[in-house]
């Protein structure tokens, strides 16, 4: 074997080890879209609570009103379902282009790692809503989502871990500054998703497409 052959042999082995342990079909484009859904959702939610009738800084409604609360929950759930649906659809498409399935040991590991913090966070937020303590709902969403991403980052692109750390930081900051929940929520689920979606799209997706 000559020098080039040896080197390409070693590279292909290392590549295979990486590919076998990490889910590399995660779509960056779906991150961008999830961020857009989140921003639209946040705008709709903002309109429900603050309205347009009042002057800047004064609310038309409060989150504690039941009708407003139900609308906010519907908006948030729609954003969540659309985002997850888009992520699965686009990742499956990317996997097909790579000649791989979407269901493999790496994706199973990813789901298991993400599942625990995500389900815990979801239930915790539900408990807060039921008990009427809304102040920490937005920070808790960000923190638990960030924890899920850090845990899942081990099974996919390393960038996901970085996104998770930023979400946690944003969540903690939001917890310190009550009343700005929707702004931090938009920054985390909207702006950061779009930013990281673009980074991952240019780093990984375009090579496949």
């Amino acid at each position: 074997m000559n020098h080039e052959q040896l080197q390409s042999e070693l590279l292909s082995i290392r590549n295979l080890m990486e590919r076998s342990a990490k889910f590399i079909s995660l779509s960056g484009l779906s991150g961008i879209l999830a961020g857009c859904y989140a921003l639209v959702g946040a705008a709709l939610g903002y309109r429900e609570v603050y309205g347009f009738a009042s002057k800047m800084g004064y609310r038309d409604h409060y989150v504690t009103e039941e009708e407003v609360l139900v609308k906010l929950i519907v908006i948030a759930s729609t954003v969540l379902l659309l985002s997850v649906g888009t992520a699965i659809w686009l990742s499956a498409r990317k996997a097909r282009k790579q000649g791989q399935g979407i269901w493999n040991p790496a994706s199973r590991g990813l789901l298991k790692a993400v599942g625990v913090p995500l389900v815990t966070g979801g239930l915790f937020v539900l408990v807060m809503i039921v008990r009427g303590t809304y102040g920490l709902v937005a920070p808790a969403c960000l923190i638990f989502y960030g924890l899920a991403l850090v845990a899942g980052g081990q099974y996919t692109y390393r960038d996901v871990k970085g996104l998770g750390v930023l979400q946690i930081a944003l969540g903690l900051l939001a917890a310190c500054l009550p009343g700005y929940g929707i702004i931090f929520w938009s920054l985390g689920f909207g702006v950061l998703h779009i930013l990281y979606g673009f980074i991952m799209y240019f780093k990984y997706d375009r090579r496949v497409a």
Partner: protein
Amino acid sequence: MLEHFDKAFENRVRLQIMAVLAANERYDFNALKELLGVTDGNLASHLKALEKVAYIEVNKSFVGRKTNTSYQASEKGKKAFAKHLETLENLIKQQKQ
């Protein structure tokens, strides 16, 4: 120099199987098949060969009524694979000089 290479890794598929099992705690048959893009028979014969030299261990479990066969690298196999990579790296270094 080439005689230092492990005979078990002379075949490309066997080396690839070891690489996957070195990077993961365990891997099941179907996932290996999909990842490496080989046929059932081909993969099975190479797995048998690696099992024979005790580089891998086989675990059979049931998922519902279906059997699920997964494989993991033995200590011996991990060592042999690490040594193989080292040999490759040394060879590359030597050629550079």
